[in-house]
């Protein structure tokens, strides 16, 4: 399905999501507020996005951006769902109840970014040891054990 058709399809069914939809680098992106994330995810699932491809986060300094990549087998299309949360309150609703696939992926985001997912059944560290201090993928992560590379390009 072409990205423009997807936009029309989406707008036809969920007019409220339509203004949030944009196209970047050939991919459909839906930016929602973090309160609406779970509702939007559930709407998209009803729309036919049956596979959760990826959950990740990006550290933009003041804010974290949560990025969900959804995939629809029936429509042959993919879409990004993005939501920003404040750095001070890194909490967002879990989508584990919609896609079990989110289980480990949200654990990974929790492990590396320290973002808490409300409603996650088993939110523990997954890649690092349980006694690890800090969240390494945050831009401000400091660790004595890191050796910085020489600074030239």
């Amino acid at each position, binding site marked *: 399905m072409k990205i423009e058709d997807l936009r029309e399809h989406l707008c036809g069914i969920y007019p409220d999501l339509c203004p949030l939809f944009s196209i970047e680098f050939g991919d459909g992106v839906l930016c929602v507020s973090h309160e609406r994330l779970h509702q939007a995810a559930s709407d998209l699932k009803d729309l036919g996005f049956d596979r959760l491809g990826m959950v990740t986060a990006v550290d933009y300094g003041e804010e974290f951006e949560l990025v969900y990549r959804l995939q629809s087998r029936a429509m042959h299309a993919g879409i990004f769902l993005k939501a920003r949360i404040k750095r001070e309150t890194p909490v967002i609703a879990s989508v584990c109840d919609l896609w079990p696939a989110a289980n480990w992926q949200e654990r990974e985001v929790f492990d590396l970014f320290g973002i808490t997912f409300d409603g996650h059944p088993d939110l523990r560290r997954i890649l690092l040891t349980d006694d690890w201090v800090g969240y*390494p993928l945050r831009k401000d992560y400091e660790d004595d054990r890191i050796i910085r590379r020489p600074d030239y390009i």
Partner: protein
Amino acid sequence: MTQTSTSDVTPDTAETQPTGTEPTETVMETVVNIGPSHPSTHGVCRVVVHLDGEVITHCEPIIGHLHRGIEKMAENRTYLQVVPLTDRLDYVGSMYANWAYCRAVERLAGIRVPERAEYIRVIVCELQRIASHMMGIGSTGADTGAFTAFMYTFAQREKVVELFELLCGARLTYNYVRPGGVSRDLPDGWVEQCRAFTAQHPSAMLEIDDLLLGNVIARARLKGVGVLTQVDAVAWGTSGPIARGSGVDWDLRRDDPYSVYPRFDFSVPLGDNGDSYDRARVRVWECVESCRIINQALDQLEPGSVQAEGLPRLLAPRPGDAYDHIESARGSLGVYLVSDGSPRLYRMKVRSPAFCNLAVLPLLAKGHTLSDLVVILGSLDPVFGEVDR
């Protein structure tokens, strides 16, 4: 005799920790710890298994023993320097991570790849699929005790590795697919060698299939073990042979076509039952299909440039984010890149198929015996470089 060196010798091997006997309501539960270094965890995975007798009541894979922080490292490196890092993600199929990463960079920087480079990418990635599946099928043999079949598949894999060595001079970490094309053109005589390989490979593959998967014992071991239903396969986000073994008809090469795949005629093998056997057999037939694709690609290959014109040493795409995915041997491998306009990446995320596929292990293993656990784990074919990143 006294102990000399192992003063603080531990009572058991690292593979096994003391029998934790925790009384539950009705049964005595045994906790067995498999890994992190165990012959059939295919790397460094630790699985904590709760046993009732020999039947698994609960198991939990503990990953991260190979978590090297590649995503963090990428944030400090230029776009070209990250290519060797992606090699080390899925070390059984380095070309895939190369390619997925390069596709994301090309999307971000708006680079057009010459046609010949696309064909070469398809050829090497299909060869890589064969090499990777040889490892996957062979380790199914090793897990069930048929070590010889592993040797045979590995001999086939060696042939692919030899082709790769001729191509780019490395056996495992190729650093071959680059943003804008591939690093070098095919050497003289390579096409003929490749054709010779694809001519014999399906037959050799099916012979190994007869030896290993046609065997009555192997079928007894694999059939009905670790059944993943089609609904679960989709909900848990599995992809690749794991999903296709469960009958999920989803292959990015055909359903979200990228590169020059629409020009090839191939079919996507599917399983009925979603058990370990189907997953292994899907791999067998994917190898055969890969040979078909390679043959077609070699027929259509035309001379030309293999690198996009005019790329400077430092790529600095405009700010933004891009995602692209390809069908790797383990499923849909995606790379998500964020650029801030500087020549260094801002963020790289690898959507690792093995990570998502491994998540279903507790689901599959429940109710099976310890012997089946290694078979199920093997049938998921995880590569921990990619799982842990």
